[in-house]
């Protein structure tokens, strides 16, 4: 079995099953709708809180599919098959998470763009925020995947995933939201924040497969 085949299989499965890309996108939109109802609809509040609320809601949207990511593989024996494939588990993890993330999370930056405009951000700020979200989402997906792999087979796994992933996701939250906020103020720090988002996201993408593979290996023994 080649890594490309795993990537395609996981992408197809994720796209077709359980709502595919519609589920996280709809969840994202729902949380964005609730935010103004909770914090009030004055344009100044929405503009100030917008980038942060949108990032936060994006994290929730990434988290909502996490429990299924490895839970079923551990339960139904797919993990054993992957273990027998001869591929290093880190490559399997990379292919699987990338496949799932690309198939299901691609609408999030677009929803973020729409959300930014709906929250009254200037067009450049909404664009910058969408760009930063696009850069952050692979990193977020891998961080959440670490948490999902570590709690696969646990009781109330979803709760544990959220508790583990939240502190790990802080740097991406900070840089992504700051990019949107700085762009809204016309601050040149926006591009610095965007670059930091890319850096953290790449760092996580490079290292997370090893942590995931260690967690999966412990579940194979």
């Amino acid at each position, binding site marked *: 079995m080649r890594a490309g085949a795993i990537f395609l299989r996981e992408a197809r499965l994720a796209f077709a099953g359980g709502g595919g890309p519609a589920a996280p996108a709809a969840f994202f939109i729902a949380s964005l709708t609730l935010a103004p109802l909770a914090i009030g609809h004055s344009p100044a509040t929405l503009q100030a809180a917008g980038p942060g609320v949108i990032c936060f809601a994006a994290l929730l949207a990434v988290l909502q599919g996490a429990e299924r990511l490895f839970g079923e593989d551990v339960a139904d024996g797919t993990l054993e098959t992957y273990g027998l494939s001869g591929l290093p588990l880190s490559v399997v993890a990379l292919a699987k998470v990338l496949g799932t993330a690309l198939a299901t999370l691609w609408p999030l930056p677009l929803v973020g763009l729409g959300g930014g405009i709906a929250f009254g951000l200037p067009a450049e700020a909404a664009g910058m925020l969408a760009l930063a979200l696009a850069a952050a989402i692979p990193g977020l997906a891998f961080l959440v995947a670490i948490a999902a792999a570590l709690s696969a*087979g*646990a009781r109330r796994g979803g709760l*544990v995933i959220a*508790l*583990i992933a939240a*502190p790990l996701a802080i740097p991406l939250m*900070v840089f992504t939201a700051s990019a949107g906020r700085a762009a809204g103020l016309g601050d040149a720090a926006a591009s610095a924040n965007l670059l930091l988002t890319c850096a*953290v996201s790449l760092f996580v993408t490079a290292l997370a497969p090893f942590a995931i593979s*260690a967690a999966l290996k*412990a579940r194979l023994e």
Partner: protein
Amino acid sequence: MFSYLANPHRFETFARIAIPVCGWLAVALIAAGLWYGLFSSPVDRFQGDTIRIMYVHVPSAWLALALYFAMGVASFVYFIWRHNLADVAAASIAPIGAVFAALCLITGAIWGKPTWGAWWVWDARLTSMLIQFLLFLGYIALRAAIEDERLAARSAAILAMVGLVNLPIVRFSVEWWDGILHQGATVFRADGPEIHGSQLLPLALMAIGFTLLAGWMVLYRMRSAIMAHKAANLQRLREARA
């Protein structure tokens, strides 16, 4: 030293001496530190008596950080060399670290209200300590959620290592996000401590005393965990015979 102590019998011999030594030294140092801190050190020119909260606050902060680091190192040792004792150490450290982080947050809030006029401000150091507390909680929750003991240990070890790698990035990002409100380093500075000797003495006594207290609690918990394990094994043996 790790491989020497990895043998439970040797650990038992070591703990039998180390536990009372750590415990009594901690009591003596904390008593002396409290006396100096509460009665025998001058009030601060600007902060008045609230400065005395520092003698509990700063050692707690130091221990929350040190224990997180120790938990990460113990997890690494367990993950690489599979020394079960290292895992027992990491598991014993987690709740103690969480308590010190909580103590740091609570004393900080009590100090912050009269000094800054707010129980809580979202500055880099406070937020970092809150995150530290959450990291401990995540570790404890993951361990508690997995029934299989060995799997729980392996998963928790991976989480502690991931947390340790991530911690510098989290700290950097939080400092980036913040402007500076909290005072910077005053004790460990290249040009010598910037704190007066009359305050440094109780602070040092309390810091060493708290460290020994933490060591005492960790060793005590470790020995209890090993005993509980042995007892469970004996129980199983007896049931098998019957």
